[in-house]
Protein backbone atom coordinates (compact mmCIF):
# COMPACT_ATOMS: atom_id res chain seq x y z
CA UNK A 1 0.00 0.00 0.00
CA UNK A 2 3.01 2.27 0.35
CA UNK A 3 3.68 2.07 -3.41
CA UNK A 4 0.83 4.45 -4.05
CA UNK A 5 0.97 8.14 -3.25
CA UNK A 6 -1.40 9.59 -0.69
CA UNK A 7 -4.37 11.21 -2.35
CA UNK A 8 -6.60 12.72 0.30
CA UNK A 9 -4.18 13.53 3.09
CA UNK A 10 -0.97 14.26 1.16
CA UNK A 11 -1.17 18.01 1.64
CA UNK A 12 -1.96 17.95 5.33
CA UNK A 13 1.00 15.65 5.94
CA UNK A 14 3.37 17.81 3.91
CA UNK A 15 2.12 21.17 5.19
CA UNK A 16 0.63 20.60 8.62
CA UNK A 17 0.59 24.28 9.54
CA UNK A 18 -1.08 25.66 6.45
CA UNK A 19 -2.81 22.89 4.47
CA UNK A 20 -6.14 24.68 4.93
CA UNK A 21 -5.10 27.95 3.28
CA UNK A 22 -5.56 28.88 -0.33
CA UNK A 23 -1.89 29.94 -0.57
CA UNK A 24 -0.67 26.44 0.27
CA UNK A 25 -3.37 24.84 -1.79
CA UNK A 26 -2.44 26.79 -4.90
CA UNK A 27 1.28 26.33 -4.26
CA UNK A 28 0.79 22.55 -4.25
CA UNK A 29 -1.11 22.33 -7.52
CA UNK A 30 -4.52 23.36 -6.21
CA UNK A 31 -7.18 24.56 -8.65
CA UNK A 32 -5.26 23.32 -11.70
CA UNK A 33 -7.77 20.48 -11.92
CA UNK A 34 -10.54 23.08 -12.12
CA UNK A 35 -8.83 24.76 -15.07
CA UNK A 36 -8.44 21.40 -16.78
CA UNK A 37 -12.05 20.48 -16.07
CA UNK A 38 -13.36 23.75 -17.48
CA UNK A 39 -11.60 22.85 -20.74
CA UNK A 40 -12.77 19.24 -20.69
CA UNK A 41 -16.44 19.95 -20.35
CA UNK A 42 -19.18 17.97 -18.72
CA UNK A 43 -19.17 14.63 -20.53
CA UNK A 44 -15.43 14.17 -20.40
CA UNK A 45 -15.40 14.77 -16.62
CA UNK A 46 -18.15 12.20 -16.06
CA UNK A 47 -16.23 9.70 -18.21
CA UNK A 48 -13.07 10.25 -16.17
CA UNK A 49 -14.93 9.68 -12.88
CA UNK A 50 -16.59 6.58 -14.34
CA UNK A 51 -13.19 5.28 -15.41
CA UNK A 52 -11.91 5.89 -11.88
CA UNK A 53 -14.67 3.64 -10.53
CA UNK A 54 -14.74 5.94 -7.53
CA UNK A 55 -17.22 4.52 -5.05
CA UNK A 56 -19.24 6.75 -2.73
CA UNK A 57 -17.70 7.02 0.72
CA UNK A 58 -20.89 7.95 2.56
CA UNK A 59 -22.05 4.43 3.27
CA UNK A 60 -23.72 2.83 0.27
CA UNK A 61 -20.59 2.61 -1.90
CA UNK A 62 -22.35 3.46 -5.15
CA UNK A 63 -20.00 4.49 -8.01
CA UNK A 64 -20.05 8.28 -8.27
CA UNK A 65 -19.71 8.45 -12.06
CA UNK A 66 -22.64 6.09 -12.56
CA UNK A 67 -24.74 8.15 -10.15
CA UNK A 68 -23.95 11.29 -12.10
CA UNK A 69 -25.04 9.52 -15.27
CA UNK A 70 -28.52 9.08 -13.75
CA UNK A 71 -29.12 12.80 -13.29
CA UNK A 72 -32.45 13.65 -14.94
CA UNK A 73 -32.31 16.25 -17.73
CA UNK A 74 -34.57 18.90 -16.12
CA UNK A 75 -32.84 22.07 -14.91
CA UNK A 76 -32.00 23.65 -12.55
CA UNK A 77 -30.11 20.78 -10.98
CA UNK A 78 -28.43 20.89 -7.58
CA UNK A 79 -25.41 19.31 -5.93
CA UNK A 80 -25.49 18.69 -2.19
CA UNK A 81 -22.35 17.59 -0.39
CA UNK A 82 -23.09 15.43 2.61
CA UNK A 83 -21.03 16.49 5.63
CA UNK A 84 -23.49 15.28 8.23
CA UNK A 85 -21.02 12.61 9.42
CA UNK A 86 -22.67 11.18 12.53
CA UNK A 87 -22.29 7.40 12.28
CA UNK A 88 -20.63 6.31 15.53
CA UNK A 89 -16.96 5.56 14.90
CA UNK A 90 -16.68 7.93 11.93
CA UNK A 91 -14.56 11.08 12.01
CA UNK A 92 -12.88 11.17 8.61
CA UNK A 93 -14.93 13.86 6.88
CA UNK A 94 -14.16 16.18 9.78
CA UNK A 95 -10.44 15.84 9.10
CA UNK A 96 -10.92 16.45 5.37
CA UNK A 97 -13.01 19.57 6.07
CA UNK A 98 -10.75 21.00 8.75
CA UNK A 99 -7.37 20.18 7.27
CA UNK A 100 -7.90 20.44 3.51
CA UNK A 101 -11.11 22.37 2.79
CA UNK A 102 -9.95 23.65 -0.60
CA UNK A 103 -9.57 20.10 -1.90
CA UNK A 104 -13.25 19.64 -1.04
CA UNK A 105 -14.26 22.99 -2.53
CA UNK A 106 -12.39 22.30 -5.77
CA UNK A 107 -13.94 18.83 -5.95
CA UNK A 108 -17.36 20.36 -5.40
CA UNK A 109 -16.88 22.94 -8.17
CA UNK A 110 -15.72 20.31 -10.68
CA UNK A 111 -18.59 17.99 -9.73
CA UNK A 112 -21.07 20.84 -10.11
CA UNK A 113 -19.67 21.60 -13.52
CA UNK A 114 -19.99 17.94 -14.49
CA UNK A 115 -23.65 17.93 -13.49
CA UNK A 116 -24.65 21.32 -14.93
CA UNK A 117 -25.26 22.65 -11.46
CA UNK A 118 -25.23 26.38 -10.75
CA UNK A 119 -25.98 26.23 -7.03
CA UNK A 120 -24.34 23.72 -4.73
CA UNK A 121 -24.58 23.22 -0.97
CA UNK A 122 -22.26 21.77 1.62
CA UNK A 123 -24.36 20.47 4.51
CA UNK A 124 -22.24 20.20 7.66
CA UNK A 125 -23.55 18.75 10.91
CA UNK A 126 -24.21 21.43 13.53
CA UNK A 127 -21.81 19.87 16.02
CA UNK A 128 -18.88 20.61 13.65
CA UNK A 129 -18.49 24.39 13.99
CA UNK A 130 -14.76 24.16 13.40
CA UNK A 131 -15.30 22.30 10.13
CA UNK A 132 -17.93 24.83 9.13
CA UNK A 133 -15.62 27.75 9.86
CA UNK A 134 -12.82 26.19 7.86
CA UNK A 135 -15.01 25.30 4.90
CA UNK A 136 -16.71 28.70 4.92
CA UNK A 137 -13.31 30.41 4.99
CA UNK A 138 -12.20 28.30 2.02
CA UNK A 139 -15.40 29.12 0.15
CA UNK A 140 -14.84 32.82 0.80
CA UNK A 141 -11.26 32.57 -0.44
CA UNK A 142 -12.43 30.71 -3.54
CA UNK A 143 -15.00 33.42 -4.29
CA UNK A 144 -12.35 36.11 -3.87
CA UNK A 145 -9.99 34.26 -6.22
CA UNK A 146 -12.62 33.87 -8.91
CA UNK A 147 -13.08 30.09 -8.52
CA UNK A 148 -16.68 30.59 -7.44
CA UNK A 149 -19.40 33.05 -8.37
CA UNK A 150 -20.23 34.37 -11.82
CA UNK A 151 -18.14 33.51 -14.87
CA UNK A 152 -15.57 31.33 -13.13
CA UNK A 153 -12.08 31.96 -14.57
CA UNK A 154 -13.70 33.60 -17.59
CA UNK A 155 -15.25 30.33 -18.66
CA UNK A 156 -18.83 31.53 -18.69
CA UNK A 157 -19.68 29.01 -15.96
CA UNK A 158 -21.46 30.30 -12.83
CA UNK A 159 -21.63 28.57 -9.46
CA UNK A 160 -22.92 29.64 -6.06
CA UNK A 161 -21.80 27.54 -3.11
CA UNK A 162 -23.68 27.75 0.20
CA UNK A 163 -22.43 26.24 3.44
CA UNK A 164 -25.32 25.03 5.57
CA UNK A 165 -25.17 23.99 9.21
CA UNK A 166 -27.37 21.15 10.48
CA UNK A 167 -29.30 21.10 13.72
CA UNK A 168 -28.19 17.86 15.34
CA UNK A 169 -29.82 14.73 13.91
CA UNK A 170 -28.05 11.62 12.59
CA UNK A 171 -30.92 10.84 10.26
CA UNK A 172 -30.12 13.97 8.23
CA UNK A 173 -27.15 12.03 6.87
CA UNK A 174 -29.64 9.93 4.90
CA UNK A 175 -29.77 11.75 1.60
CA UNK A 176 -33.50 12.41 1.30
CA UNK A 177 -33.77 13.46 4.96
CA UNK A 178 -30.86 15.78 4.28
CA UNK A 179 -32.75 17.36 1.40
CA UNK A 180 -35.83 17.88 3.58
CA UNK A 181 -33.62 19.46 6.20
CA UNK A 182 -32.05 21.73 3.61
CA UNK A 183 -35.53 22.79 2.58
CA UNK A 184 -36.20 23.90 6.15
CA UNK A 185 -38.25 20.86 7.12
CA UNK A 186 -38.05 18.10 9.69
CA UNK A 187 -35.26 15.74 8.69
CA UNK A 188 -37.51 12.84 7.77
CA UNK A 189 -36.53 10.58 4.86
CA UNK A 190 -38.59 10.53 1.68
CA UNK A 191 -39.90 7.40 0.02
CA UNK A 192 -37.74 6.00 -2.79
CA UNK A 193 -39.41 5.59 -5.25
CA UNK A 194 -40.57 8.11 -6.28
CA UNK A 195 -38.22 10.56 -4.60
CA UNK A 196 -34.88 9.50 -6.01
CA UNK A 197 -32.73 12.60 -5.61
CA UNK A 198 -31.34 12.33 -9.15
CA UNK A 199 -34.88 12.84 -10.44
CA UNK A 200 -36.78 14.60 -7.65
CA UNK A 201 -34.39 15.97 -5.10
CA UNK A 202 -33.93 19.42 -3.63
CA UNK A 203 -37.02 21.52 -4.44
CA UNK A 204 -38.14 18.50 -6.49
CA UNK A 205 -35.33 19.22 -8.96
CA UNK A 206 -32.67 16.71 -10.11
CA UNK A 207 -30.05 16.56 -7.37
CA UNK A 208 -26.76 14.79 -6.80
CA UNK A 209 -25.87 13.96 -3.21
CA UNK A 210 -22.27 12.94 -2.56
CA UNK A 211 -20.18 12.49 0.53
CA UNK A 212 -17.36 14.87 1.56
CA UNK A 213 -14.65 12.24 1.04
CA UNK A 214 -16.07 11.14 -2.29
CA UNK A 215 -15.75 14.63 -3.76
CA UNK A 216 -12.37 15.27 -2.13
CA UNK A 217 -11.00 12.64 -4.56
CA UNK A 218 -12.16 14.51 -7.65
CA UNK A 219 -9.26 16.98 -8.09
CA UNK A 220 -6.74 14.11 -8.02
CA UNK A 221 -8.76 12.11 -10.53
CA UNK A 222 -8.91 15.04 -12.94
CA UNK A 223 -5.18 15.74 -12.52
CA UNK A 224 -4.05 12.14 -12.86
CA UNK A 225 -6.80 10.51 -14.87
CA UNK A 226 -9.51 8.03 -13.96
CA UNK A 227 -7.37 5.10 -15.07
CA UNK A 228 -4.59 6.04 -12.67
CA UNK A 229 -7.14 6.00 -9.86
CA UNK A 230 -8.72 2.68 -10.79
CA UNK A 231 -5.24 1.14 -11.01
CA UNK A 232 -4.81 1.55 -7.25
CA UNK A 233 -5.97 -1.38 -5.12
CA UNK A 234 -8.70 -3.91 -5.93
CA UNK A 235 -10.55 -3.58 -9.21
CA UNK A 236 -13.96 -3.51 -7.59
CA UNK A 237 -13.20 -0.83 -4.98
CA UNK A 238 -10.13 1.04 -6.12
CA UNK A 239 -8.38 4.15 -4.90
CA UNK A 240 -7.55 5.20 -1.42
CA UNK A 241 -10.09 5.55 1.31
CA UNK A 242 -10.20 7.01 4.77
CA UNK A 243 -10.51 4.49 7.54
CA UNK A 244 -11.40 5.86 10.99
CA UNK A 245 -10.13 3.46 13.66
CA UNK A 246 -11.30 3.84 17.25
CA UNK A 247 -11.79 1.81 20.42
CA UNK A 248 -9.23 -0.38 22.16
CA UNK A 249 -6.30 0.07 19.76
CA UNK A 250 -2.95 1.65 20.56
CA UNK A 251 -3.07 4.14 17.69
CA UNK A 252 -6.62 5.23 16.94
CA UNK A 253 -7.03 7.74 14.13
CA UNK A 254 -7.77 8.20 10.45
CA UNK A 255 -5.70 6.19 8.00
CA UNK A 256 -5.76 6.62 4.26
CA UNK A 257 -5.66 3.01 3.17
CA UNK A 258 -5.54 1.06 -0.05
CA UNK A 259 -7.79 -1.98 0.19
CA UNK A 260 -6.30 -5.45 -0.02
CA UNK A 261 -4.48 -5.75 3.30
CA UNK A 262 -5.88 -8.10 5.92
CA UNK A 263 -7.76 -7.11 9.07
CA UNK A 264 -4.80 -8.42 11.05
CA UNK A 265 -2.54 -5.96 9.27
CA UNK A 266 -5.00 -3.12 9.69
CA UNK A 267 -5.58 -3.66 13.39
CA UNK A 268 -2.11 -4.78 14.47
CA UNK A 269 0.23 -2.97 12.07
CA UNK A 270 -1.64 0.13 11.02
CA UNK A 271 -3.47 0.82 14.28
CA UNK A 272 -0.69 -0.50 16.52
CA UNK A 273 -2.51 -3.50 18.02
CA UNK A 274 -4.70 -3.83 21.07
CA UNK A 275 -4.10 -1.71 24.18
CA UNK A 276 -2.13 -3.25 27.05
CA UNK A 277 -1.41 -6.30 24.90
CA UNK A 278 -5.02 -7.37 25.40
CA UNK A 279 -6.83 -9.87 23.25
CA UNK A 280 -8.99 -8.79 20.35
CA UNK A 281 -12.62 -9.80 20.87
CA UNK A 282 -14.59 -8.27 18.00
CA UNK A 283 -14.68 -5.27 15.72
CA UNK A 284 -17.22 -3.32 13.73
CA UNK A 285 -15.84 -3.13 10.18
CA UNK A 286 -17.86 -0.28 8.69
CA UNK A 287 -19.60 2.04 11.13
CA UNK A 288 -22.24 1.35 13.77
CA UNK A 289 -24.68 -0.07 11.20
CA UNK A 290 -22.35 -2.87 10.11
CA UNK A 291 -22.51 -6.46 11.43
CA UNK A 292 -19.52 -7.33 13.63
CA UNK A 293 -16.45 -9.35 12.72
CA UNK A 294 -14.66 -11.69 15.13
CA UNK A 295 -11.02 -12.84 15.09
CA UNK A 296 -11.62 -16.58 14.70
CA UNK A 297 -13.49 -16.06 11.44
CA UNK A 298 -12.32 -12.79 9.97
CA UNK A 299 -8.87 -11.69 11.17
CA UNK A 300 -7.09 -13.04 8.12
CA UNK A 301 -9.70 -12.06 5.58
CA UNK A 302 -9.11 -9.09 3.33
CA UNK A 303 -10.14 -5.52 3.79
CA UNK A 304 -11.81 -5.18 0.41
CA UNK A 305 -15.38 -4.34 -0.44
CA UNK A 306 -15.84 -7.74 -2.09
CA UNK A 307 -14.49 -9.69 0.90
CA UNK A 308 -16.34 -7.63 3.50
CA UNK A 309 -19.60 -8.01 1.58
CA UNK A 310 -19.20 -11.74 1.11
CA UNK A 311 -18.37 -12.15 4.81
CA UNK A 312 -21.74 -10.64 5.67
CA UNK A 313 -20.92 -7.07 6.58
CA UNK A 314 -20.19 -3.80 4.80
CA UNK A 315 -17.58 -1.13 4.23
CA UNK A 316 -20.18 1.48 5.17
CA UNK A 317 -18.64 4.72 6.34
CA UNK A 318 -15.25 3.04 6.65
CA UNK A 319 -15.20 3.28 10.44
CA UNK A 320 -13.59 0.45 12.38
CA UNK A 321 -14.45 0.11 16.08
CA UNK A 322 -12.20 -2.32 17.92
CA UNK A 323 -13.17 -4.09 21.16
CA UNK A 324 -10.84 -6.08 23.40
CA UNK A 325 -11.55 -9.06 25.65
CA UNK A 326 -12.65 -6.88 28.57
CA UNK A 327 -15.71 -5.72 26.65
CA UNK A 328 -19.16 -6.83 27.80
CA UNK A 329 -20.76 -7.59 24.43
CA UNK A 330 -24.35 -7.28 25.67
CA UNK A 331 -23.43 -3.79 26.85
CA UNK A 332 -21.71 -3.02 23.54
CA UNK A 333 -24.81 -4.10 21.60
CA UNK A 334 -26.98 -1.98 23.88
CA UNK A 335 -24.75 1.04 23.33
CA UNK A 336 -25.10 0.69 19.57
CA UNK A 337 -28.84 0.01 19.65
CA UNK A 338 -29.39 2.95 21.97
CA UNK A 339 -27.92 5.20 19.31
CA UNK A 340 -30.41 4.06 16.69
CA UNK A 341 -33.31 4.25 19.14
CA UNK A 342 -32.31 7.82 19.94
CA UNK A 343 -31.89 8.77 16.29
CA UNK A 344 -34.95 7.08 14.79
CA UNK A 345 -37.01 9.82 13.15
CA UNK A 346 -40.21 8.03 14.19
CA UNK A 347 -41.93 7.76 10.80
CA UNK A 348 -42.00 3.96 10.57
CA UNK A 349 -43.48 1.82 13.33
CA UNK A 350 -41.00 -1.09 13.05
CA UNK A 351 -38.08 1.30 13.48
CA UNK A 352 -39.56 3.66 16.07
CA UNK A 353 -40.99 0.90 18.29
CA UNK A 354 -38.54 -1.85 17.42
CA UNK A 355 -35.36 0.06 18.19
CA UNK A 356 -36.86 1.26 21.48
CA UNK A 357 -37.86 -2.26 22.50
CA UNK A 358 -34.51 -3.74 21.55
CA UNK A 359 -32.85 -1.11 23.69
CA UNK A 360 -35.19 -1.62 26.64
CA UNK A 361 -34.73 -5.39 26.60
CA UNK A 362 -30.94 -5.10 26.47
CA UNK A 363 -30.99 -2.57 29.29
CA UNK A 364 -33.14 -4.83 31.39
CA UNK A 365 -30.71 -7.70 30.80
CA UNK A 366 -27.80 -5.48 31.81
CA UNK A 367 -29.66 -4.40 34.92
CA UNK A 368 -29.72 -8.03 36.05
CA UNK A 369 -33.25 -8.85 34.99
CA UNK A 370 -32.67 -11.04 31.94
CA UNK A 371 -35.35 -13.58 31.08
CA UNK A 372 -35.08 -16.99 29.43
CA UNK A 373 -37.28 -15.71 26.62
CA UNK A 374 -35.03 -12.70 25.86
CA UNK A 375 -32.94 -14.19 23.03
CA UNK A 376 -36.12 -15.21 21.20
CA UNK A 377 -37.78 -11.86 21.81
CA UNK A 378 -34.69 -9.99 20.61
CA UNK A 379 -34.72 -12.09 17.47
CA UNK A 380 -38.45 -11.63 17.01
CA UNK A 381 -38.31 -7.84 17.30
CA UNK A 382 -35.34 -7.81 14.91
CA UNK A 383 -37.32 -9.97 12.49
CA UNK A 384 -40.17 -7.45 12.58
CA UNK A 385 -37.80 -4.63 11.64
CA UNK A 386 -35.94 -6.63 9.02
CA UNK A 387 -37.70 -9.86 7.96
CA UNK A 388 -35.49 -12.91 8.19
CA UNK A 389 -32.66 -10.95 9.82
CA UNK A 390 -30.59 -11.48 6.69
CA UNK A 391 -27.63 -9.61 5.27
CA UNK A 392 -28.03 -7.42 3.32
CA UNK A 393 -31.14 -6.63 5.34
CA UNK A 394 -34.67 -6.76 4.00
CA UNK A 395 -36.57 -3.59 4.63
CA UNK A 396 -39.96 -2.88 6.14
CA UNK A 397 -39.07 0.75 6.65
CA UNK A 398 -38.66 3.92 4.61
CA UNK A 399 -34.90 4.14 5.16
CA UNK A 400 -32.13 1.77 6.28
CA UNK A 401 -31.82 3.19 9.81
CA UNK A 402 -34.25 0.68 11.28
CA UNK A 403 -32.45 -2.38 9.85
CA UNK A 404 -29.14 -0.86 11.00
CA UNK A 405 -30.22 -1.31 14.61
CA UNK A 406 -30.63 -5.01 13.94
CA UNK A 407 -26.94 -5.47 13.03
CA UNK A 408 -25.54 -5.28 16.58
CA UNK A 409 -28.32 -7.48 17.98
CA UNK A 410 -27.95 -10.12 15.29
CA UNK A 411 -24.17 -10.01 15.74
CA UNK A 412 -24.52 -10.42 19.51
CA UNK A 413 -26.85 -13.42 19.16
CA UNK A 414 -24.68 -15.02 16.48
CA UNK A 415 -21.19 -14.56 17.90
CA UNK A 416 -21.71 -14.25 21.66
CA UNK A 417 -24.65 -16.50 22.65
CA UNK A 418 -22.79 -17.46 25.84
CA UNK A 419 -22.76 -13.83 27.00
CA UNK A 420 -26.46 -13.53 26.27
CA UNK A 421 -27.05 -16.75 28.22
CA UNK A 422 -25.01 -15.41 31.13
CA UNK A 423 -27.12 -12.26 31.23
CA UNK A 424 -30.25 -14.40 31.24
CA UNK A 425 -28.78 -16.58 33.96
CA UNK A 426 -28.08 -13.55 36.15
CA UNK A 427 -31.73 -12.58 35.70
CA UNK A 428 -33.06 -15.88 36.97
CA UNK A 429 -31.31 -15.27 40.29
CA UNK A 430 -33.42 -12.16 40.85
CA UNK A 431 -36.95 -12.73 42.15
CA UNK A 432 -38.95 -10.02 40.35
CA UNK A 433 -38.28 -8.14 37.16
CA UNK A 434 -38.84 -4.47 37.55
CA UNK A 435 -37.89 -1.09 36.02
CA UNK A 436 -36.80 -1.52 32.46
CA UNK A 437 -35.90 2.05 31.58
CA UNK A 438 -32.95 3.58 33.36
Amino acid at each position, binding site marked *: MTDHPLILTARMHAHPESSHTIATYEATGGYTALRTALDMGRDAIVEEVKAANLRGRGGAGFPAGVKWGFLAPARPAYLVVNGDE*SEPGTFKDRQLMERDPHQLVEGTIISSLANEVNHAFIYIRGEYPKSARRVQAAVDEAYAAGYLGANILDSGYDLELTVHLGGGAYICGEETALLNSLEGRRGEPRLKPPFFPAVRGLYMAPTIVNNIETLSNIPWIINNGGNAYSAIGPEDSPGRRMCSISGHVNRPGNYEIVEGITWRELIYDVAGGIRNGNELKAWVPGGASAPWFVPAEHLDTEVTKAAIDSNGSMTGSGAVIVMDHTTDMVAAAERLVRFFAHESCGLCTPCREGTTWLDMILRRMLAGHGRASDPDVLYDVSDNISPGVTWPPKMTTICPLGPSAVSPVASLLKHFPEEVAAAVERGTQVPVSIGIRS
Partner: protein
Amino acid sequence: MTDTARWSEESEALAESVMAKYPQKRSALMPLLYIAMREDGYLSEAGMRRVADLVDLEPAQVSSVASFYTMYKLEPVGKYLVSVCTSISCWLLGGDEVLEAVEASAGVPSGETDESGVISPEHVECIGACGGAPAVQVNYELIEGLTPKKATELVEWLNAAQPATLNGDEMQALFGGERSFDWAINETNDATGPYPAFQPHGTIAALDRS
Protein backbone atom coordinates in the same frame (compact mmCIF):
# COMPACT_ATOMS: atom_id res chain seq x y z
CA MET B 1 -48.71 37.60 8.62
CA THR B 2 -48.62 38.69 12.22
CA ASP B 3 -46.51 41.58 13.35
CA THR B 4 -43.70 40.20 15.44
CA ALA B 5 -41.05 41.96 17.45
CA ARG B 6 -37.99 42.60 15.32
CA TRP B 7 -34.55 41.50 16.43
CA SER B 8 -31.52 43.68 16.91
CA GLU B 9 -30.38 45.47 13.76
CA GLU B 10 -27.39 43.15 13.52
CA SER B 11 -29.49 40.02 13.66
CA GLU B 12 -32.04 41.40 11.22
CA ALA B 13 -29.26 42.19 8.75
CA LEU B 14 -27.81 38.75 9.28
CA ALA B 15 -31.20 37.16 8.68
CA GLU B 16 -31.58 39.04 5.43
CA SER B 17 -28.17 37.95 4.18
CA VAL B 18 -28.90 34.36 5.18
CA MET B 19 -32.13 34.28 3.23
CA ALA B 20 -30.37 35.67 0.17
CA LYS B 21 -28.15 32.61 0.08
CA TYR B 22 -30.94 30.17 -0.75
CA PRO B 23 -33.09 29.78 -3.86
CA GLN B 24 -36.14 29.41 -1.59
CA LYS B 25 -36.45 31.27 1.65
CA ARG B 26 -37.78 28.39 3.69
CA SER B 27 -34.31 26.85 3.33
CA ALA B 28 -33.04 29.61 5.60
CA LEU B 29 -35.19 28.30 8.43
CA MET B 30 -32.44 26.38 10.22
CA PRO B 31 -29.82 29.16 10.17
CA LEU B 32 -32.56 31.61 11.22
CA LEU B 33 -33.30 29.44 14.23
CA TYR B 34 -29.65 29.84 15.26
CA ILE B 35 -29.99 33.59 14.94
CA ALA B 36 -33.11 33.45 17.10
CA MET B 37 -31.12 31.52 19.70
CA ARG B 38 -28.38 34.09 19.58
CA GLU B 39 -30.93 36.81 20.35
CA ASP B 40 -32.43 35.16 23.42
CA GLY B 41 -29.84 32.60 24.52
CA TYR B 42 -32.31 29.86 23.66
CA LEU B 43 -35.08 29.31 21.15
CA SER B 44 -37.95 31.29 22.63
CA GLU B 45 -41.50 31.37 21.38
CA ALA B 46 -41.01 34.97 20.31
CA GLY B 47 -37.93 33.91 18.39
CA MET B 48 -39.83 31.20 16.55
CA ARG B 49 -42.61 33.69 15.73
CA ARG B 50 -40.07 36.03 14.19
CA VAL B 51 -38.61 33.18 12.13
CA ALA B 52 -42.12 32.17 11.02
CA ASP B 53 -42.76 35.72 9.87
CA LEU B 54 -39.52 35.90 7.95
CA VAL B 55 -40.10 32.69 6.00
CA ASP B 56 -43.90 32.95 5.71
CA LEU B 57 -44.79 29.93 7.79
CA GLU B 58 -47.08 29.40 10.77
CA PRO B 59 -45.30 29.42 14.14
CA ALA B 60 -46.51 25.84 14.65
CA GLN B 61 -44.67 24.76 11.51
CA VAL B 62 -41.50 26.38 12.77
CA SER B 63 -41.74 24.75 16.17
CA SER B 64 -42.41 21.41 14.52
CA VAL B 65 -39.11 21.74 12.67
CA ALA B 66 -37.21 23.11 15.67
CA SER B 67 -38.32 20.29 17.94
CA PHE B 68 -36.97 17.71 15.50
CA TYR B 69 -33.35 18.70 16.08
CA THR B 70 -31.35 18.37 19.29
CA MET B 71 -29.39 21.61 18.99
CA TYR B 72 -32.32 23.99 19.14
CA LYS B 73 -32.85 24.47 22.84
CA LEU B 74 -36.49 25.21 23.57
CA GLU B 75 -35.73 25.92 27.24
CA PRO B 76 -33.07 28.26 28.62
CA VAL B 77 -29.78 26.46 29.25
CA GLY B 78 -26.72 27.46 31.21
CA LYS B 79 -23.94 29.68 29.98
CA TYR B 80 -21.93 26.57 29.15
CA LEU B 81 -23.53 23.55 27.59
CA VAL B 82 -21.21 20.64 28.38
CA SER B 83 -22.00 17.77 26.00
CA VAL B 84 -20.43 14.43 26.85
CA CYS B 85 -20.38 11.70 24.23
CA THR B 86 -21.59 8.32 25.47
CA SER B 87 -21.72 6.51 22.12
CA ILE B 88 -19.81 3.30 21.50
CA SER B 89 -16.19 4.44 20.99
CA CYS B 90 -16.30 6.89 23.89
CA TRP B 91 -18.11 4.38 26.06
CA LEU B 92 -15.37 1.81 25.39
CA LEU B 93 -12.83 4.25 26.81
CA GLY B 94 -14.72 5.67 29.78
CA GLY B 95 -17.24 8.17 28.41
CA ASP B 96 -19.80 7.21 31.05
CA GLU B 97 -17.29 7.98 33.82
CA VAL B 98 -16.56 11.35 32.22
CA LEU B 99 -20.28 12.10 32.16
CA GLU B 100 -20.57 11.14 35.83
CA ALA B 101 -17.70 13.45 36.70
CA VAL B 102 -19.28 16.35 34.81
CA GLU B 103 -22.65 15.76 36.46
CA ALA B 104 -21.07 15.47 39.89
CA SER B 105 -19.09 18.67 39.62
CA ALA B 106 -22.03 20.55 38.11
CA GLY B 107 -24.25 19.14 40.83
CA VAL B 108 -27.07 18.36 38.42
CA PRO B 109 -27.86 15.43 36.13
CA SER B 110 -27.68 15.44 32.35
CA GLY B 111 -30.39 17.60 30.81
CA GLU B 112 -30.57 20.09 33.68
CA THR B 113 -28.86 23.36 34.57
CA ASP B 114 -27.08 24.16 37.82
CA GLU B 115 -28.61 26.67 40.22
CA SER B 116 -26.44 29.59 39.16
CA GLY B 117 -27.23 29.01 35.49
CA VAL B 118 -23.63 28.37 34.52
CA ILE B 119 -23.32 24.69 33.58
CA SER B 120 -25.75 22.45 31.71
CA PRO B 121 -24.43 18.91 31.41
CA GLU B 122 -25.92 16.74 28.68
CA HIS B 123 -25.03 13.40 27.19
CA VAL B 124 -24.95 13.23 23.43
CA GLU B 125 -24.51 10.66 20.71
CA CYS B 126 -21.28 10.46 18.66
CA ILE B 127 -19.73 13.86 17.96
CA GLY B 128 -17.20 12.61 15.41
CA ALA B 129 -14.21 12.52 17.72
CA CYS B 130 -14.11 8.76 18.30
CA GLY B 131 -10.36 8.53 17.68
CA GLY B 132 -9.83 10.92 20.58
CA ALA B 133 -12.34 9.28 22.90
CA PRO B 134 -13.71 10.15 25.35
CA ALA B 135 -14.83 13.44 23.84
CA VAL B 136 -16.68 16.44 25.23
CA GLN B 137 -17.92 19.68 23.71
CA VAL B 138 -18.45 22.98 25.50
CA ASN B 139 -20.85 25.10 23.46
CA TYR B 140 -19.93 22.73 20.63
CA GLU B 141 -16.19 23.46 20.85
CA LEU B 142 -14.41 20.12 21.03
CA ILE B 143 -12.08 18.67 23.66
CA GLU B 144 -10.72 15.16 23.10
CA GLY B 145 -9.05 12.58 25.28
CA LEU B 146 -10.57 13.56 28.62
CA THR B 147 -10.38 11.67 31.88
CA PRO B 148 -12.93 11.99 34.69
CA LYS B 149 -10.36 14.04 36.62
CA LYS B 150 -9.74 16.41 33.71
CA ALA B 151 -13.47 16.71 33.13
CA THR B 152 -13.94 17.76 36.74
CA GLU B 153 -11.20 20.36 36.33
CA LEU B 154 -12.86 21.61 33.15
CA VAL B 155 -16.15 22.21 34.94
CA GLU B 156 -14.36 23.87 37.87
CA TRP B 157 -12.49 26.12 35.45
CA LEU B 158 -15.66 27.09 33.61
CA ASN B 159 -17.31 27.92 36.93
CA ALA B 160 -14.38 29.94 38.25
CA ALA B 161 -13.15 31.70 35.11
CA GLN B 162 -16.48 32.01 33.31
CA PRO B 163 -14.75 33.05 30.09
CA ALA B 164 -16.84 35.36 27.89
CA THR B 165 -15.82 33.38 24.85
CA LEU B 166 -14.45 29.88 24.45
CA ASN B 167 -11.61 28.57 22.38
CA GLY B 168 -11.47 24.86 21.63
CA ASP B 169 -7.72 24.71 21.20
CA GLU B 170 -7.17 26.44 24.53
CA MET B 171 -9.49 24.03 26.33
CA GLN B 172 -7.85 21.11 24.55
CA ALA B 173 -4.44 22.22 25.81
CA LEU B 174 -5.70 22.64 29.37
CA PHE B 175 -7.89 19.58 29.75
CA GLY B 176 -7.54 17.32 26.72
CA GLY B 177 -5.36 14.37 25.77
CA GLU B 178 -4.88 12.59 22.47
CA ARG B 179 -6.82 13.91 19.50
CA SER B 180 -8.50 11.99 16.67
CA PHE B 181 -5.98 13.50 14.27
CA ASP B 182 -3.13 15.96 14.40
CA TRP B 183 -4.20 19.51 14.65
CA ALA B 184 -1.15 21.64 14.11
CA ILE B 185 -2.77 25.03 13.68
CA ASN B 186 -4.50 26.68 16.59
CA GLU B 187 -7.66 28.57 15.87
CA THR B 188 -8.60 31.95 17.18
CA ASN B 189 -12.33 31.81 17.37
CA ASP B 190 -14.71 33.09 19.94
CA ALA B 191 -17.45 30.68 20.74
CA THR B 192 -20.29 31.89 22.81
CA GLY B 193 -23.18 29.61 23.40
CA PRO B 194 -25.24 27.62 23.51
CA TYR B 195 -25.36 27.65 19.74
CA PRO B 196 -22.43 26.70 17.51
CA ALA B 197 -19.93 29.42 16.76
CA PHE B 198 -20.05 29.28 13.04
CA GLN B 199 -19.39 32.85 12.03
CA PRO B 200 -21.95 33.79 11.17
CA HIS B 201 -24.15 30.84 11.72
CA GLY B 202 -23.38 29.44 8.37
CA THR B 203 -23.69 32.58 6.48
CA ILE B 204 -22.18 35.90 7.61
CA ALA B 205 -19.50 35.84 4.99
CA ALA B 206 -22.20 36.50 2.41
CA LEU B 207 -22.44 40.01 3.82
CA ASP B 208 -18.89 40.76 2.78
CA ARG B 209 -19.46 39.57 -0.74
CA SER B 210 -22.60 41.45 -1.59
